[in-house]
């Protein structure tokens, strides 16, 4: 109850940020919220199952593209609904194709699928519509985008909270620990994974859709940039993918760090990112906070024994 009250107070306080913040801090706020949503949604599925998905940006980009294509045709709220549906359908297809894979094969497949989606969109634009880039003109100010993302973040955290307390969340953890045991206990593995994967992907799609108007000009290389997928993994793993607020707490400092790095070391940025990715995936798969926890419990256990 206490935590819920605190979360609501924080939410209300954050809603007032655009009233005080100038354009630059507001832009940072939008970036943080956007990555906070992506990292939280990513961890909802990948935290308990330990399936490292690199498909984040495929859904993010599909959301953005849906808005770019439909903004002139449909009312904005309806565009978001269509984006969510597109995300859902692609998630079901990708999920059915990949969720039987395990470990590194899943990582590679999701990465490859992202490239495939990008190539398909590019192909379609070049050969069918004969335009590569698109302009997005929507009467949305940055603060509107900020508020939408804040609402999406709140919804995402609420869903993540519910998942953690529900049977499906437990099912996902059991599958992550041992799929053989899971199936022998009666867990419907494919259905469970597909459900959570889809929820997670629809949220990612909406994150892309909501942020589309920020760019004004959209093309596949911008909205399907694989760096985004890697960044999200780093954020979630660093913050702790099995904690409710872990991915969000990872997103804040890392987003600021990467903003600074990309501004100051544009040439070395990718190398730094790659090294960080490898280090985190191999060294701290449960997150820095969890590593701190286990160190703490080890120290206290020793203290008790001695």
């Amino acid at each position, binding site marked *: 109850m206490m935590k819920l009250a605190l979360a609501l107070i924080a939410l209300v306080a954050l809603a007032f940020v655009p009233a005080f913040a100038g354009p630059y801090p507001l832009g940072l706020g939008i970036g943080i919220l956007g990555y906070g949503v992506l990292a939280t949604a990513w961890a909802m599925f990948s935290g308990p199952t330990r399936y490292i998905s690199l498909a984040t940006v495929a859904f993010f980009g599909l959301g953005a593209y849906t808005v770019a294509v439909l903004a002139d045709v449909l009312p904005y709220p309806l565009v978001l609904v269509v984006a969510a549906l597109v995300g859902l359908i692609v998630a079901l297809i990708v999920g059915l194709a990949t969720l039987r894979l395990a470990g590194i094969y899943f990582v590679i497949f999701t990465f490859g699928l992202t490239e495939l989606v990008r190539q398909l969109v590019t192909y379609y634009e070049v050969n069918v519509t004969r335009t590569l880039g698109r302009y997005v003109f929507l009467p949305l100010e940055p603060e509107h985008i900020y508020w939408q993302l804040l609402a999406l973040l709140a919804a995402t955290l609420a869903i993540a909270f519910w998942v953690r307390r529900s049977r499906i969340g437990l099912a996902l953890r059991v599958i992550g620990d041992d799929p053989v045991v*899971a199936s022998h206990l*009666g867990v419907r593995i494919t259905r469970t994974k597909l459900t959570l994967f889809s929820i997670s992907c629809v949220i990612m799609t909406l994150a892309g859709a909501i942020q589309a108007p920020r760019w004004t000009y959209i093309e596949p290389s911008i909205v399907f940039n694989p760096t985004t997928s890697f960044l999200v993994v780093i954020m979630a793993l660093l913050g702790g993918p099995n904690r409710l607020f872990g991915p969000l707490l990872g997103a804040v400092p890392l987003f600021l760090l990467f903003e600074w790095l990309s501004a100051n070391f544009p040439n070395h940025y990718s190398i730094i990112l790659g090294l960080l990715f490898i280090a985190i995936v191999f060294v701290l798969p449960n997150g820095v906070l969890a590593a701190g926890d286990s160190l703490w419990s080890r120290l206290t256990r020793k203290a008790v024994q001695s």
Partner: protein
Amino acid sequence: MTLLSLHNVTKRFGGLTAVNGLTFDLAAGETVGLLGPNGSGKTTALNMISGYLPVSDGAIALSGDTISTLGPERIAHRGVARTFQLVRALPSLSVGENVLAALAFRKEPVWGKAAEARIGALLADVGLAGRADQPADSLTYIDLKRMELARALASDPKLLLLDEWLAGLNPTELRAGIDLITSLRQRGITILLVEHVMDAVRALCSRCVVMNAGTKIADGPTSEVLADPEVIRAYLGEDHA
């Protein structure tokens, strides 16, 4: 009344036939030992019954319905539970959550307050009272086996498959383990018991099925089967026959 029936069940791994035309029935309420030297196909037989491995040939039926075409989750929902020869705990879950995982995904799920009470009772049954909040990966090997049994019992199975559950216990623990399985038998659970500990087999099983190199070589009352020269030969090797 027949609960489980295997008819001509065969499992081939490439060129190796691990189980070859295995046929036997289990009556409801029976405790039957499945014996045989290492590599004779006992675990593979259990794996086919629980749905972990598909059969290469033959059929398995539970209460008359074919289950050998179903996956493990559907077979679990029909009342089959098991333990594994090499204990499979869910290491990132607590002891209580390991049991909860079995309650939560039953055909009629048990969840929330009702589950808490059940977890307490199940853990107490296997000698792990009050250990629900402990991380599963902090348990000793013996306690992991106990936890795995509590998890199997949580599904209220009609048929329980135990794969060398008593292996590695010291004499005191073995006594307790035999008593525990006896109490399950008294509750009416049908048990198929893969076991090398002969004292336990004699104490628990009225009947035994013996396999050698994938084939059934004996099936009958425990005392007769254990005195069968072919069984002794299979166990001890040709020299001792």
